[in-house]
């Protein structure tokens, strides 16, 4: 395949009309797979036994850990989209990072709330300002800031460029979150699943956790595609209203 042909194929995929057609076909399947995965994951989460130290509170892990992973993955998706906005001016890239910000904020909120509810019985406190908790809280504030910025600016392409720069600057927080438990002395435990020497948690906890993580990931992608579709429709409504206003202005000028 020649380079020009490859670029043409990519441009075809970047076409919002093609994206809408693809989303209409994919969304029912993605929603069904998400629901099935959640049903299996929740069944496994509640049918397993408790941990010998943490007891039944280990069940909080099945929602806290996937939500925490998603909070970081969502920001990574936004950073990749931001590169698409700044480097390639990809038509869907700014739609992608704008649509992902509220989803990332919601998953980060779940991670913070469930972490706090897990921390109280295990650590004896709802919250400590240690490196992991503080860096995730900063991530939550960054999501809120990006949502506010996108809503504050009328011109979506200008808002997208400003947001893209901020997203890329803020991406420095993602490795800080990931490695904060290794770099600093924190109350939060170190990684026990994604490790170079393999997971350290028992298989009976690992499987429900992995299925819930895949379910949360599918939920994110389903909602992201749907939110991107909504954003494309929103931009079309704005463009068509402008067109209607222009046409009305021309008619009035002719009559005058």
């Amino acid at each position: 395949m020649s380079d020009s042909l490859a670029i043409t194929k990519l441009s075809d995929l970047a076409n919002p009309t093609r994206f809408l057609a693809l989303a209409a076909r994919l969304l029912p399947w993605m929603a069904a797979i998400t629901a099935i995965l959640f049903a299996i994951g929740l069944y496994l989460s509640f049918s397993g036994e408790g941990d010998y130290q943490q007891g039944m509170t280990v069940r909080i892990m099945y929602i806290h850990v996937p939500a925490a992973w998603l909070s970081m993955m969502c920001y990574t998706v936004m950073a990749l989209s931001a590169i698409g906005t700044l480097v390639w001016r990809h038509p869907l890239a700014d739609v992608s990072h704008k649509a992902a910000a509220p989803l990332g904020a919601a998953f980060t909120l779940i991670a913070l709330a469930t972490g706090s509810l897990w921390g109280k019985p295990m650590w004896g406190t709802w919250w400590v300002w240690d490196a992991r908790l503080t860096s995730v809280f900063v991530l939550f504030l960054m999501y809120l800031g990006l949502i506010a910025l996108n809503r504050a600016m009328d011109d979506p392409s200008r808002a997208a460029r400003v947001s893209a720069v901020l997203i890329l600057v803020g991406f420095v927080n993602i490795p800080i979150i990931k490695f904060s438990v290794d770099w600093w002395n924190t109350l939060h435990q170190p990684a026990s699943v994604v490790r170079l020497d393999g997971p350290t948690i028992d298989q009976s906890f690992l499987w429900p956790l992995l299925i819930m993580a895949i379910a949360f990931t599918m939920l994110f992608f389903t909602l992201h595609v749907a939110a991107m579709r909504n954003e494309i429709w929103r931009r079309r409504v704005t463009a068509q209203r402008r067109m209607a206003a222009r046409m009305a202005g021309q008619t009035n000028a002719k009559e005058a």
Partner: protein
Amino acid sequence: MSHLFYISASYIVAGIVTLCLIAWVWLDGRARQRELAELEASGIRRRSARPAAPTETGGPA
């Protein structure tokens, strides 16, 4: 407070946030679709969605 309180509170919080997120995305999509349908009904269409202007031979441009 028992462990059951913390477990159920975690699942309730996660459930409420997730359901709110799903409802927001779904309702937002429905509202945008309704707006597009209203604009189309009033004759406002995207340039690419308009019927092609006829050529001199009567075929599409």
